[in-house]
């Protein structure tokens, strides 16, 4: 841990916050959604559910990019690898079952599927190896600027054999969709810290109009407890404010340079999310200028019709409608070793977090 951040792990402060949280009282049931998958993982790891006062529930949202990526995307990537192209991807994606297969299975059958830590690694693979490399461009606002910067580098260096498969998603449109859902009735949002690094507090101000408060949170246990206390305060006082409780990393305007690069390369468009269906203007697609690098357009690939496992309730989990143990497959046939749905595959998926930490 970098020196000046160690106080965010201080046991003394953590205990004080825990006591403070325990002492809060509410007359009606309160439902807080943590939107970010990394928060979900931390909340389970540190047992934060057990620290909540009576009547307060934390539910997980659609904040795991791998989990919300629909089957047809995975099917397309699988077919690309089967056709002999190099498919480069973040690690979480490789075990996600599509309609018929997964990237892991295709790799075992001899397909060239590479796990990379950065889109730049995929780019260097294309530049140095000369093979056609398709990078699976999934992720939220946190990740999209890095992919954009990589694509712009490929343009600047004239490397033609680097492609991306656009699958990025935007958080604010998903929040709008969730807020409008009458089944959910969310009292407040724990907003995703690293998406907010790019977006800034300003991009969430629409929540005020919807009458739902939100607190931008960091990822240390102290950050998360502080943010929950702040959010519960706002809910109690019926103040639909958006508070930045991660000021060491999040600015009012976000990171304008990163945002600028993201919008130079991508445009917004309607996009399908697993569990949430089509959300208007919630997906990232390549702009006309860069269309030549779009893996969906550049290759003659036609995967079979996508199909879902009807018993898997990943969609309801992503929407916060049920907790993983309410799914009949959870722990019985669906485990991290043999995942049926993406929420069990990704380390930050709700099912995986519930399985590991309860």
């Amino acid at each position, binding site marked *: 841990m*970098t020196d000046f951040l160690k106080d965010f792990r201080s046991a003394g*402060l953590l205990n004080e916050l825990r006591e403070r949280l325990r002492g809060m009282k509410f007359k009606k049931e309160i439902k807080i959604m943590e939107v970010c*998958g990394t928060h979900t993982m931390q909340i389970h790891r540190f047992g934060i559910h057990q620290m909540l006062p009576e009547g307060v529930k934390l539910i997980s949202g659609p904040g795991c*990019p791998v989990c919300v990526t629909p089957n047809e995307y995975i099917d397309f990537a699988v077919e690309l690898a089967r056709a002999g192209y190099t498919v480069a991807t973040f690690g979480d994606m490789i075990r996600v079952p599509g309609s018929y297969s997964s990237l892991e299975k295709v790799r075992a059958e001899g397909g060239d599927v590479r796990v990379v830590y950065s889109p730049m690694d995929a780019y260097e693979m294309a530049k140095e190896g000369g093979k056609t490399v398709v990078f699976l461009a999934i992720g939220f606002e946190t990740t999209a600027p890095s992919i954009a910067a990589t694509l712009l580098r490929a343009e600047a260096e004239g490397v033609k054999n680097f492609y991306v498969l656009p699958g990025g998603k935007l958080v604010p449109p998903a929040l709008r969709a969730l807020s409008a859902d009458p089944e959910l009735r969310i009292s407040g949002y724990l907003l995703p810290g690293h998406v907010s690094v790019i977006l800034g507090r300003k991009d969430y101000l629409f929540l005020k109009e919807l009458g739902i408060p939100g607190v931008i949170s960091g990822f240390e246990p102290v950050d998360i407890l502080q943010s929950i206390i702040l959010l519960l305060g706002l809910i109690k006082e019926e103040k639909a404010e958006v508070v930045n409780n991660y000021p*060491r990393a999040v600015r009012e305007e976000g990171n304008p340079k990163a945002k600028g690069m993201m919008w130079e390369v991508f445009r917004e468009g309607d996009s399908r999310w697993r569990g949430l269906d089509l959300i208007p203007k919630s997906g990232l697609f390549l702009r006309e200028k860069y269309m030549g690098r779009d893996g969906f357009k550049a290759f003659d690939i036609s995967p079979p019709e996508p199909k879902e496992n009807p018993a898997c309730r990943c969609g309801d989990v992503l929407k916060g409608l049920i907790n993983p143990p309410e799914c009949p497959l959870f722990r019985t046939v669906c485990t991290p070793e043999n995942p049926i749905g993406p929420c069990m595959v990704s380390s930050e998926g709700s099912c995986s977090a519930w399985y590991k930490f309860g």
Partner: protein
Amino acid sequence: MCLAVPMKIVEIDGLDAVAELQGVRRRVRLDLVDDCKVGDYVLIHAGFVIEKLDEEQAKKSLETWEEFLSSQEK
């Protein structure tokens, strides 16, 4: 997937840099930020610096919380 790790910049060469955390070094890119200097604490995501960390703000927010907690002691 939105995991970002706080690290310290130890070398810079154009848009390429090296960041360090507890003795572990990693190559990172500086495309997304301006004015990054050796010694800056930064957040790294997918091989890119996505923001510089503000040490002052970190201290300030901890102080504010300490005040908040002590002011509401019973």
